[in-house]
């Protein structure tokens, strides 16, 4: 089997890692903000827990899971911006005219971003464990599985978003709104049980809702509770991939079967 796809993928991963490392400020910023908010919101969630107001969202668990969801969504903007840069720098066409397939290009760009988002979540949960005694009842592997599924979902939604946005300003505005909506609807800031009824009714439409459900399952329940939330995150990830494939590949204007057929028929 040819090693060429591996060579191409390695080149793209190395290059994307370099680009991310050149500008670490935003990722560090979102990490610091997440840690700060875990620290200041934890007492609030502990108080809520004592009142029995939101039994599924207790203290440190809610603070850490909520901020992991919220700031991974903000970090998503960084990944999406990197993809958008390819268009504003005109490098997207260079990549497309190279032997690398669409999947290789996307994988090469996505892997370093996925690792960065995973690292962000590992630090948020790790610091919460070290400083506030967070301990996942279903075990660390279950929590890691949730983080991996959510990070992949976030990444693929970001890929879809980057194909929809035309300019960095559009992406920034849409990304902020999407991140906040997903966070609020998911119960990352205010537990879903305390949301108004109409918001509770539409909360499951948010991928953040299922991410929180998965994290709560790993933190306070057992691994058997993770199946449905992880499956739903898979569905949202597929939506992101679908948007990217439909719009991204369409925008790319790569030779498509219909066009080939028209070309083969010749002029009308």
């Amino acid at each position, binding site marked *: 089997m040819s090693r060429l796809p591996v060579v191409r993928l390695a*080149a793209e991963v190395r*290059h994307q890692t370099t680009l991310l490392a050149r500008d670490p400020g935003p990722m560090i910023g979102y990490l610091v903000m997440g840690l700060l908010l875990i620290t200041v919101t934890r007492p609030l969630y502990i108080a809520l827990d004592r009142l029995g107001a939101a039994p599924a969202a207790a203290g440190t668990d809610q603070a850490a899971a909520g901020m992991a969801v919220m700031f991974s969504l903000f970090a998503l903007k960084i990944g999406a911006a990197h993809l958008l840069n390819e268009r504003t720098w005109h490098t997207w066409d*260079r990549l497309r005219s*190279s*032997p690398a397939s669409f999947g290789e290009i996307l994988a090469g760009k996505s892997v370093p971003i996925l690792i960065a988002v995973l690292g962000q979540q590992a630090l948020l949960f790790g610091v919460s464990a070290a400083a506030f005694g967070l301990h996942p009842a279903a075990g660390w592997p279950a929590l890691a599985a949730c983080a991996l599924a959510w990070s992949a979902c976030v990444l693929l939604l970001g890929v879809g978003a980057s194909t929809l946005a035309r300019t960095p300003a559009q992406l920034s505005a849409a990304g902020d709104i999407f991140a906040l909506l997903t966070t609020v609807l998911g119960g990352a800031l205010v537990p879903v049980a305390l949301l108004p009824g109409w918001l509770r009714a539409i909360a499951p439409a948010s991928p953040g809702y299922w991410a929180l459900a998965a994290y709560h399952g790993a933190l306070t329940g057992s691994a058997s509770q993770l199946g449905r939330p992880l499956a739903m995150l898979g569905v949202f990830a597929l939506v992101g991939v679908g948007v990217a494939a439909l719009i991204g590949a369409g925008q790319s204007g790569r030779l498509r079967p219909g*066009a080939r057929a028209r*070309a083969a028929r010749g*002029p009308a």
Partner: protein
Amino acid sequence: MTTVMETTGLQATGLVKHFGTTAALDGFDLSVAAGEIAGLIGHNGAGKTTFARVTAGLLSPDAGQVRVAGMDVAQSPARVRPLLGLAPQELALYPTATARENLYLFAGLYGLRRREARQRIGQVVDALVLGGVLGRRVRDLSGGQQRRLQAATAMLHRPRVLLLDEPTVGADPVTRDALLAAVRAVAAEGAAVVYTTHYLPELDTLNATLAVADHGRVVARGDRAALLATLPRGAAGDPPPTLDDLYRRLVSA
């Protein structure tokens, strides 16, 4: 019967590409043999860039066909792309990465392994006089250095067909000389080169054949001297006709 040129160079036949009601390509035919440099000239909007994008597989033609080394770009894109080198009109480099990092990315994308990439980058960097800037970020390079770097990324993998779309725009004479010498070297290795430009004297330096595009089609094609010979002679003592004269006559007809 298949000719040598049909299996080694570039053949575009009957290309049509519309953007809305505008025909960017309207029956565009161009064949370039291996080792040949074809200078493609024409007004802005004549179809030069659209032709390059269709050939590179970035746009689908509405009709017609491009064959690279005998393979149809539309039917066999995965086999054709490794044979193509493209330096588009606009700069398409990673500004926050260094020149070296850009070169290694494109070397890797074209399947050059580390040792081979290092060797080939050394050769191309020498040819394009980029040795002193490898460690600098692209955004900190001069326009001429960026142009040379872009051409270098297109030449790294020894393409069989090289598409250079106005590679010397804004370039100083030193940059231009280095680029033209590198293009001649690529052609001497057997590549078919399509060189789009508005600077007609460059085509003399390249000893290029000529293709004149107008309104989405090639209206004149052939050897420079032969095409110049078709122009009416002036009075005795008048300077001989130039490519500029030929160009004005063909595209304004």
